[in-house]
C-alpha cells in the first residue's frame, strides 16, 4: 500500500487534482492436455504499478512492471517516476481537451476483500492436477472419428492494493478457478466439436479447487465424444421459424452480448465506437423502453457468490453492489464508471470500471449479469413446446456494432416435436434483433436449474483489454425465432 500512497502523493505534488494507483500481483497457472500431450503448462507471475491521474480535466495513465525480487523498497522508489509520467501525459493531451472530466462525489472507502474458497488451488499438487486432466482426457478416448481431445484448467490469483487521492485504501485478493473438456470429430466432410460444461475452456468461478473437482469432468467425456461423432452425420438444423429453448451455457452469452455490452454507458455515448462499437440502448430509453417480456429480469451484481467479477471494489475504488438492468421487461439501469455516472446525473458509480492487470487504465466492463429464474421445470417446458429446437453450448457468436442484429450458432441442437425431444441437429443457427428476441421470452426455468456461467475472456477497449464476469441463467424459451442455414 505504501507504494500506491507514494505514487498518489507524487501525482498530487506534480499537479494532479485526482490520482489513483493500483499495485497488482497476478499469479496464474494453466494446464492443458491435447491428444495425450501437454500442450499448455504455464505458471505466470506479473507484478507492477499503474497510476491514473486527472489534470485539469484530462486523464493520464502510466504503468511499469516492478522487480519484486529486488526488494519492495526498491520497487517503491519507482512510484514517483511513474506518477510523473502520468501527469506529464495528462497535461500534454489537455491541449486538445473539449470538455473536462467530472468525477462526481468522492470515493474514499478503506477496506479489504478476499474471495472465499475451501481449497487453495495453488496448494494442490501438480501431480493431482495433471491426474485430474489425464482422467478427463482419457474419458473421451474410443472413437476413430475423434481428431482431438482436450482437457484443461486455469487458476488466477490477483492481489491488488489501491489508493486514491480521495483517501481510498483497499486491498483485495481475487481467486478464480475453472476447467473443462472438449472433443472434436471429423467425418462425412464435417468437423464437430462438443465441450463440457461450456465453451471458452469450461466453466470458471471465483472459487477454489473445490469448484474444479465439483465439475466431475471425466463423467462427461464419453457423452461429449459420442455427440461430436454423431453430429458429423446429423442433419443440419433446418431454416424457419420455431420456438427456441436455450440452455444456460448458451443463454449466458446471449445475455453477455445483447444485454451486457449495450448496457455499458461509455458505448452509449460513442466513446467505444472506434473498435468495439456503440449501443442502441440510449439514455432516452432509460426507465421506459420495453427490452423484453414481463418475465425478463436482468440483475447486475458484483457481490454474487462465485461470480467471476465478484469483488469488494472496482478499479476506481468504488464498493461493489447490485441493481436491475432490466426489471419486469423494462430497461432500468446502466453499467457505469465514476465519470460516466456523473455524466447522466447518477449519485454514484455502479462500480464497474475495471482494468486488465496493472498495465491498463480502467474502463467500464460488464459485471456479473444474470437472468433471474422463473418457475418452470425443464421437462415441463419441453413438454409444453410443440415445434422447437433446444440449443446447447456456444459455438459462434456475432452481433452488430449497435448490439441489435445478432446471429448465434450452438454446438448441438435437439428437435422438439409435440412436446418431445427428437433427433439431434447439427449447427443450429438463429438470427434475431435484441429487443424483439427478449420480448419472445415466455418461460424461464426455476432456481434449481439456474447457475453461474463464467466468461473468462471478454474483450473491450482499444487497445483491447480482457476481463472476466459471470452470467447466471436457467434454460428459457423464446417463441418463434428465426433459424437460418
Amino acid at each position, binding site marked *: 500500500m505504501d507504494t500506491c500512497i507514494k505514487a498518489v502523493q507524487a501525482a498530487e505534488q506534480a499537479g494532479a487534482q485526482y490520482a489513483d494507483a493500483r499495485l497488482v500481483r497476478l499469479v496464474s497457472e494453466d494446464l492443458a492436455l491435447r491428444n495425450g500431450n501437454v500442450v499448455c*503448462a504455464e505458471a505466470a507471475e506479473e507484478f507492477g504499478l499503474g497510476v491514473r491521474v486527472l489534470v485539469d480535466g484530462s486523464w493520464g495513465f*502510466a504503468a511499469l512492471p516492478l*522487480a519484486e525480487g529486488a526488494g519492495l523498497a526498491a520497487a517503491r522508489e519507482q512510484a514517483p517516476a511513474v506518477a510523473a509520467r502520468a501527469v506529464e501525459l495528462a497535461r500534454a493531451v489537455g491541449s486538445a481537451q473539449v470538455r473536462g472530466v467530472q468525477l462526481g462525489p468522492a470515493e474514499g472507502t478503506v477496506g479489504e476483500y478476499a474471495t472465499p474458497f475451501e481449497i487453495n488451488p495453488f496448494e494442490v499438487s501438480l501431480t493431482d492436477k495433471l491426474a485430474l486432466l489425464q482422467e478427463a482426457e482419457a474419458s473421451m478416448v474410443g472413437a476413430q472419428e475423434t481428431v482431438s481431445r482436450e482437457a484443461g484448467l486455469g487458476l488466477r490469483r490477483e492481489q491488488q492494493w489501491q489508493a486514491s487521492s480521495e483517501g481510498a485504501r483497499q486491498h483485495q485478493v481475487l481467486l478464480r478457478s475453472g476447467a473443462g473438456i472438449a472433443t472434436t470429430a471429423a467425418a462425412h466432410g464435417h468437423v464437430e466439436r462438443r465441450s463440457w460444461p461450456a465453451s471458452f475452456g469450461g466453466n470458471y468461478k471465483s472459487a477454489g479447487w473445490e469448484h474444479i473437482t465439483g465439475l466431475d469432468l471425466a463423467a462427461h467425456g464419453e457423452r461429449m465424444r459420442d455427440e461430436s461423432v454423431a453430429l458429423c452425420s446429423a442433419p443440419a438444423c433446418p431454416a424457419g421459424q420455431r420456438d427456441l429453448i436455450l440452455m444456460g451455457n448458451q443463454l449466458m452469452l446471449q445475455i453477455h452480448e445483447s444485454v451486457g455490452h449495450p448496457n455499458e454507458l461509455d458505448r452509449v455515448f460513442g466513446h467505444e465506437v472506434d473498435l468495439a462499437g456503440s449501443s442502441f440502448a440510449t439514455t432516452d430509453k432509460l426507465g421506459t423502453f420495453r427490452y423484453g417480456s414481463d418475465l425478463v429480469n436482468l440483475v447486475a451484481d458484483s457481490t454474487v457468490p462465485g461470480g467471476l467479477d465478484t469483488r469488494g471494489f472496482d478499479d476506481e475504488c468504488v464498493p461493489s453492489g447490485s441493481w436491475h438492468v432490466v426489471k419486469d421487461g423494462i430497461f432500468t439501469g446502466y453499467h457505469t464508471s465514476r465519470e460516466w455516472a456523473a455524466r447522466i446525473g447518477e449519485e454514484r458509480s455502479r462500480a464497474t470500471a475495471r482494468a486488465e492487470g496493472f498495465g491498463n487504465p480502467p474502463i467500464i466492463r460488464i459485471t456479473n449479469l444474470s437472468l433471474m429464474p422463473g418457475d418452470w421445470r425443464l421437462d415441463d417446458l419441453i413438454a409444453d413446446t410443440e415445434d422447437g429446437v433446444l440449443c446447447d453450448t456456444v459455438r459462434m457468436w456475432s452481433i452488430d456494432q449497435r448490439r441489435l442484429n445478432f446471429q448465434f450458432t450452438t454446438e448441438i441442437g435437439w428437435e422438439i416435436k409435440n412436446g418431445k425431444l427428437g433427433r439431434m441437429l447439427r449447427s443450429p443457427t438463429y438470427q434475431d434483433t435484441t429487443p424483439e428476441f427478449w420480448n419472445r421470452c415466455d418461460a424461464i426455468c426455476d432456481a434449481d436449474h439456474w447457475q453461474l456461467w463464467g466468461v473468462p475472456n471478454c474483450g473491450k477497449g482499444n487497445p483491447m483489454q480482457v476481463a472476466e464476469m459471470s452470467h447466471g441463467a436457467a434454460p428459457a424459451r423464446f417463441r418463434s425465432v428465426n433459424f*437460418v442455414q
Partner: protein
Amino acid sequence: MSSSLPDCRDGAALLELAQKIVAASPADETEVTVQRTEDAYVRFADSGPTQSADRSDLHIAVRARLAPQGGGPGFREARATSSSTAEADTARAVERAVALARVSPVTADAPGLAADSCGPQAIPPGVTAMLDQSAADRIAATTRLVRYALDGCAAESLAPAGLVQLTALGTALANSVGRGVFAARGRAAMALTASHAQGGSGWAEDIRGSLTDLAPAGAGPADGPADGISVVERALAKARQNREPQSIAAGEYTVVLEPAAVASLLLFASYCGFGAREVAEESSMLCGRIGERAFSPLISISDDAADRRHGGLPFDGEGNPRHRVALVEEGVLREPVTDALWAARLGRENTGHGIGQPDPHGPLPQNLILACGQASRADLLAGVKRGLLVTQFHYTNMIEPRDLTLTGMTRNGTFLIEDGEVCGPVKNLRFTDSLVRILANVSAVGDEAAACGALFDGELLTPALRVEGFRFTSTTDF
C-alpha cells in the same frame, strides 16, 4: 517512453539477460524469451482525449524441457513467465517451469531445440526515431494528430472516436543449445470513426512502422500531407458519403470489399486454415484441396515476415527463422505452415511459424499477404452492374472451419454501386458466406495493399477485392 528497464533496442542487454537465465536453469534444455515493450496511446472522442497512457512492459518466458525419466525420445516441458528482471524472480520462474515439466507427460515426438540463427538484425530506423524522441515531443506530435481529427469532425458536426498508438518492441531469445537472436519492431497506428448524430459514419485507419511514417517529423495539420492526416481526410470523406442510408434487401450481390473488409475475412484463414495442426486434424479448408485450384486464379496468398511494408519478427516463438511460404498460388492451395513440432511430426520442413511453446494452437501464419492485382479502384467499380461497396465488417466470426463459413455485419459505410458508379449509402447488412466460396468468386483484385486488422487479433496486408455473388442474409435499420 523511459523507464528503469533495458531499452527496447538494446539487444545485447536483453540477450544477456536471456542467456543468464538459461545458464542458471537445471533443465536438460532451456529456452528463454525476453520481450520489452514501450507503448503509448491517446484515445479520443467528442470530449477530446478520453484516455492517454504511457506504458513500459517486460515479459520473460522460461521454457524448461526434461528428458523422459528412464530414457527414450521426447521431452517433458513447461513454461513459466515473469515481469521482473530481478535474479530472485527469474530464478523462481525457472523453478516453476522445471517443477511443472517434472510432472508433465512426455511428448515423445518433440524434437530437440535448434541452434541456428537468423543472424544480426538492424534496428528499424522508425524504432530508433520513436525511442530517441523526447516524451514531450512525442506527446506533442500525437496530440496534434488528435486535435486535427477533433477539429475536422467539429467542422462538419461529426462525433469523433479514435486512437493514435505508438509501440516499440524488442524481443531476444536464447536457448541452451546456443541460439541467441534479437530483433526490434515498431508500430504506429491511427484510426478515426466520424459519426453523424442521426446515423451513418465514416472510418479510416493507417498502420505503419513508426510515428515518423504516420506523421513525418515536424508534420502537423499545417505542415503537409502526412499519412496520419490522410486518415482524417479519408474518414471525413467517407462520412460525407454515408449520410441517410437507405434500406436494401438481403441477397446475393457483387461486392467491392475494401482492404479492411477483406482483412476481417482472411484473418480467419490465419487463425484456422493455413496451419499444419488444423490440416492434420482435418479441420482446415486445405483438407482435400491441397494442389487444387480452389480459389480464383487472381488470388495468391503468402506469409512473409520480411515484407518491408508490414513485416514481423524474422524468427518465430522458438527462435526459428521465419520463411516466406506461398500458401495460395494463382488460386491453387499449397501446403500449410509448420513449426518445429509439427514439421517433425509430419516429416516436413520447419517453415518457422511457431508460437511460444508449449501451446495448444500449433503453427500460425502471422504475416499474411494477399498479392495485389491490376485493378484500380475505378476498375473494381467499373465491373459492377449492381452491387455494394463495403468499407468494413464488424464482429466477423466462424461458423464452420472446413469451408470457413463466416458471418459478420457491414460497418462504417456500405454503398450501392450501379453501372460502375457509387450511388449512395445503404443500411448495414449481415453476411453469411464461405471464405472458400468468396475467394473462388473473386473477379478482380486491387492494385494497392493496406495493412489492416479487425476486432480480433492480427493484421495482414491486402488490397481490395471484387467478389461475385456475395451472400447477405439479413438487414438492419441503421
